[in-house]
C-alpha cells in the first residue's frame, strides 16, 4: 500500500498506518544522530528550548557524506536507530511524532510510540545515493561544529520509507518475518 504524507505529522494522519506500508514523505524533516541527541538532552535538562519545533516533527537519523560542488547534500542513508533509543522517549513525550532510521528499537521506545500514537519508519540502509535525490535542500540549524552530526533541516519530496512500528506498537521486524515464513511453509506443502 503506497501512501503520501506531508510533515509536520499529526496523530490523525498516521493513526491508520500499518507495518509494511510504503510511505512517501514530503516536507521538512530534521537530521540528528548520536551527538546531537545528547546535546538536546542537555538543553532539556537546563529547561532550554530545542533548536526546532518538536511538535509533529520527524527526525531522521543520518550523518550524510560531504556535499559535492553544485549539489544539495551528499549520500544520506539512515544510521542504526538503537543508538538513539536512550534519548527518544523524552522527545516523544514532547511531541515528536515520527522517526526515520533502520534497525530495531527497544521496548521503552515501542511503549512510548504506542502511548503517543507516533510512528517509526525505516529508510533503506545503504541506499544513500537514492535517498539523496529526494532531498531538495538542507540547512544547518544547530551544532555546526559536529560536522556530519550537526542538526540539519532537510526539505524532502517523496522520500521513500517503510512503516516499521505503527501507532499500535506492532513491529514489521517481527510481523514481516512471521508472515513471510507462514506463507513459505504453506507454499512448500
Amino acid at each position: 500500500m503506497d501512501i503520501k504524507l506531508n510533515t509536520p505529522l499529526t496523530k490523525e494522519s498516521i493513526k491508520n498506518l500499518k507495518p509494511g506500508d510504503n510511505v512517501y514523505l514530503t516536507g521538512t524533516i530534521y537530521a540528528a544522530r548520536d551527538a546531537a541527541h545528547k546535546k538536546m538532552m542537555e538543553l532539556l535538562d537546563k529547561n532550554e528550548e530545542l533548536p526546532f519545533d518538536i511538535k509533529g516533527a520527524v527526525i531522521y537519523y543520518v550523518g550524510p557524506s560531504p556535499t559535492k560542488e553544485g549539489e544539495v547534500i551528499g549520500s544520506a542513508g539512515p544510521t542504526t536507530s538503537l543508538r538513539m533509543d536512550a534519548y527518544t522517549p523524552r522527545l516523544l513525550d514532547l511531541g515528536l511524532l515520527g522517526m526515520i532510521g533502520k534497525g530495531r528499537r527497544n521496548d521503552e521506545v515501542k511503549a512510548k510510540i504506542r502511548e503517543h500514537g507516533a510512528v517509526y519508519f525505516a529508510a533503506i540502509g545503504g541506499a544513500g545515493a537514492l535517498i539523496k535525490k529526494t532531498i531538495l535542500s538542507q540547512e544547518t540549524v544547530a551544532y555546526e561544529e559536529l560536522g556530519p552530526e550537526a542538526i540539519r533541516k532537510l526539505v524532502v519530496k517523496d522520500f521513500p520509507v517503510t512503516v516499521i512500528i505503527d501507532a499500535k506498537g506492532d513491529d514489521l521486524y517481527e510481523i514481516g518475518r512471521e508472515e513471510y515464513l507462514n506463507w513459505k511453509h504453506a507454499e512448500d506443502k
Partner: protein
Amino acid sequence: MRNIDSKEVTLAVKALVMDANYFLPEDVLSALKENKKKEKWLLATNTLGMIIENAQIAERDMVPMCQDTGMVVVFVEIGQEVHVENGLLEDAINQGIREGYEEGYLRKSVVSDPLNRKNTGDNTPGVIHYTLVAGDQLKIMVAPKGFGSENMSRLKMLKPSEGLQGVKDFILETVELAGPNACPPMVVGVGIGGTFDKCTLLAKQALMRKLDQYNENPFYRDLEIEMLDKINSLGIGPQGFGGQTTALKVSIEYFPTHIAGLPIAVNINCHATRHKEVVL
C-alpha cells in the same frame, strides 16, 4: 630488487578508495539481481530493487552508494623483491586515504581515541594488514568497512567438543542477532581456527572473496552452501522486512589451530560489500 616510489602507492590508494565507494563490485550486483529474480515476497522484491537502483545511481553520479564510507581496511601483499622508496609504505597508504576521502567527498568517520572520541578529520588511519609474498609486485586491496554491519560481528572460543554443530549454531545465532541492524542482505565472512587474532583476520579475508567463488576444500565449500541455505530459511529478508534474501553469500576461511581450541569469528558485511584492488 624492484623500486616502487611511495608516491605511486598514494595515488593508487586514493583512486581505490573513491572507486570502492562509488562502484559496487560486479559479482555483488549480479548476486543482488539473481536473488531479486528468485524472491517471491513482494516487499522483499521491491526492497532489493531499490538497493540495485541505488548502486546504479551511485555509479552513474559518482557518489558514495552509502553515506557510511567506512573505516578503510587495507590488505597489502608485498613481493619480497620490492623496495619502497621515498617514505614509509604505511604513511603513503594513509596519505592516499586522506586525499581520496577529501577529494572524493567521502565521509570522515574515524575518531583518534576509542574513548576520548575526537574525529581525526581525514578518515585516517586505515587498518592495514601486510603479507610478504614471493616476487616483485605490490598488490593493494582497499575495503571500506561500514560499522552498521561491523558492530554485529562476533568471535567465540568454542570447545573442540562443540565441533561442527557448534560452528553452525554460532554462525546462525550471529546472523539472527544482527537481523535488520546489519542492512541485509548480508555477506557473511567466517574464520575458523588459528588463534584469537588470526580467526578474526580470516573472517575479514573471507569477505574479500568474490561471491561466485567457493572455498577450494570441498568440506568447507559444502558448509558454505549449507549455511547460506540455512540463513536464507530464517525469513529475515532484505532490510529485515521479511523474505528469502537474508544473505547473498557465506564465505569460510580456515587455518590450523591448537589441540585445545576451536576459535570462530563471524564478520558481517551488508549488501554494500566494497573492495577494489590494484597491482603495482
